[in-house]
């Protein structure tokens, strides 16, 4: 009896799925998330946690390069699927599970040691390098290392050392260049924010969207569903999984045409009454306004779907500026609160 084959079959009953959202292909992402919730398959937090790499939509050249870099970081047993249209979701997921349970296939698909090492560097940092602006593109072949480093501290194992720079307190501290996205939990599709970190404080930041010209904007059938989707991601970033799950379920209900007034009222009351959440997001500046105000605008937009929210679009173009001076956790909240639309980021950053 083949023990490994048996274990693989058991493990394949509940694989973790890393979803890479293609800008514009929101419909596929929504169908994929709904299918995962239906099956009780967890959404992976990153490549190390993933069994299945699921690309939602047809990626453009920049995102495709990121996807293959991420794929190199996924440990075996693993399966990779690309879902182009919402109706394909279940068939693709079943195929992935079958592949995971296939001991013969998984034995031959071992991740090559050297490539795994090269690709795995810096986790979510490494992958975004492939989407670097053209002036850095020449470095991409080196295997996903920090290719836009300005480091002068030499290299270790082919990686640049952190450089030094003055921080906000006038001390000279290490500066680390880290790209955030495009593969991060609850992160806008295709967005990459290149940040310079000192500790976990952001000193410099610039945002753009991979394959910006490539995306066809998604037409949400319900604006309440769109706001609930943004809300679910915000609550996920704020570390409130139970409320985030509630928002996602309401979003899916709204998309399938159910009435959500009662459920939405319950969720909104829960969020507004949470003194803890208010305490945590109060006073995090996001341009002219702050994160708490942006959240309130979103909640109001869910209550009154006809009212278009005021936030986001103009601020999103300056996303990078909003993040300077913020700590990483605060920056994640700002990005989730602004929730930049693929159409509105990076026009001036290319």
């Amino acid at each position, binding site marked *: 009896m083949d023990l490994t084959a048996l274990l693989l079959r058991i493990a394949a009953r509940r694989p973790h799925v890393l979803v890479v959202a293609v800008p514009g292909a929101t419909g596929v992402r929504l169908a994929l998330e709904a299918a995962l919730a239906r099956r009780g398959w967890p959404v992976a*937090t990153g490549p190390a*946690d993933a069994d299945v790499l699921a690309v939602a939509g047809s990626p453009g050249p920049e995102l495709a390069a990121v996807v293959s870099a991420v794929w190199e970081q996924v440990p075996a047993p693993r399966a990779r699927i690309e879902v182009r249209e919402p109706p394909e979701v279940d068939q693709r997921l079943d195929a992935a599970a079958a592949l995971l349970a296939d001991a013969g296939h998984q034995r031959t698909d071992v991740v090559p040691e050297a490539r795994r090492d090269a690709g795995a560097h810096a986790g979510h940092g490494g992958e975004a390098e492939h989407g670097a602006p053209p002036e850095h593109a020449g470095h991409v072949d080196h295997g996903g290392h920090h290719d836009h480093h300005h480091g002068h501290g030499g290299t270790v194992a082919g990686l640049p050392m952190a450089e030094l720079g003055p921080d906000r307190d006038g001390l000279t501290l290490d500066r680390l260049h880290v790209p955030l996205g495009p593969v991060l*939990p*609850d992160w806008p599709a295709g967005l990459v924010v290149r940040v310079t970190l000192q500790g976990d404080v952001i000193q410099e930041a610039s945002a753009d969207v991979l394959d910006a010209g490539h995306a066809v904007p998604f037409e949400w059938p319900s604006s309440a569903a769109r706001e609930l989707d943004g809300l679910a991601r915000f609550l996920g970033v704020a570390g409130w999984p139970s409320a985030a799950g509630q928002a996602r379920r309401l979003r899916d209900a709204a998309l399938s045409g159910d009435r959500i007034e009662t459920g939405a009222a319950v969720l909104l009351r829960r969020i507004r009454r949470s003194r*803890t959440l208010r305490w*945590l997001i109060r006073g995090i500046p996001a341009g002219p306004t702050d994160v708490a105000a942006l959240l309130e605008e979103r909640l109001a937009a869910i209550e009154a779907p006809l009212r278009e929210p005021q936030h986001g679009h103009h601020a999103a173009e300056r996303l990078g500026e909003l993040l300077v001076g913020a700590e*990483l956790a605060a920056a994640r909240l700002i990005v989730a609160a602004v929730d930049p639309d693929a159409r509105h980021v990076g026009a001036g950053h290319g």
Partner: protein
Amino acid sequence: MGEMPVVPEPAALPWWWALLLPVLLGFVTWLVLVGDAALSGGRAAFAAPGREAVRLVVGQRRRTVAADTVLGRIGGGTLPVAALLAAAVLPLGERPVADLSVGVVWFNAMEVLAWAAVWMVGWGSNSALGLVGGYRFVAQGLAYELPHMFAIITAALGAESLRLTTIVDAQRDLWFVVIMPVAFAVYLVSAAAMAFWGPFDAPVARDVAGGAAVELSGVDRLVFAGGRWLLLVVAAAMAVPLFLGGGAGPLLPAWAWVAVKTAAVLALLLWLRHRFPTVRMDRYVELAWVVLIPLTIAQALAVALVVLGGA
């Protein structure tokens, strides 16, 4: 004050309980995992922890460039070992595996090992997000540890002993939760914080893609996650001898009361995560140092006066 309190004869369980303890704790942890899966609405909650464990056992261990693999793996391995060593002084019923005269200090020392462990895992992976997660736990430790130490010292003060069996005996008439409610509440909060359990899960949060654990896969992730759950169970179980009268209770035997009370504390901790979003340390540290430390000191002072008055 007069004479020293009478030191009882060591009342430890037979030696083979040391071998049984990991099995017992593993079983309890398993039950908690099933409970958590059911509470978060997961389907097939009963099978989910098993499938997850199998998935990690067959999963490939991965390495990152220029990682300090040895440091990271020592860190990961430290978590379950620290939890088990901390559990050695836990009275399972009336008697613990090791009835140390400094049981409270031993428990605290073992639990503090988690600081080093999480930081080592985060540093060892040579990944920016892992490093952020590791340092978040160090910051979290600075915030929760002082109120936590005042809370457990208050229980020791109430019994005039650091030995856990003596602390349980001292609660024969009145559980410490009644005379030191603030210390108990602070203990519960810090139990969640020491196991970096929600709402104190910032070191391994989704916003940094898993934080300290970001690069772990396969057995490495299993050991890390398992160690974290063990820590949570041990921290919850320690609230029973410290504040809830240990095995005291009508009808049922002592071990059953310990089990029931531990389950109640664990249920409360599971609910905490459901109820509150992740508390970031840049906000919490202010509350911890400005509000909780003075409160716990006042609590210790009040208990000290009661003890002096009663002597």
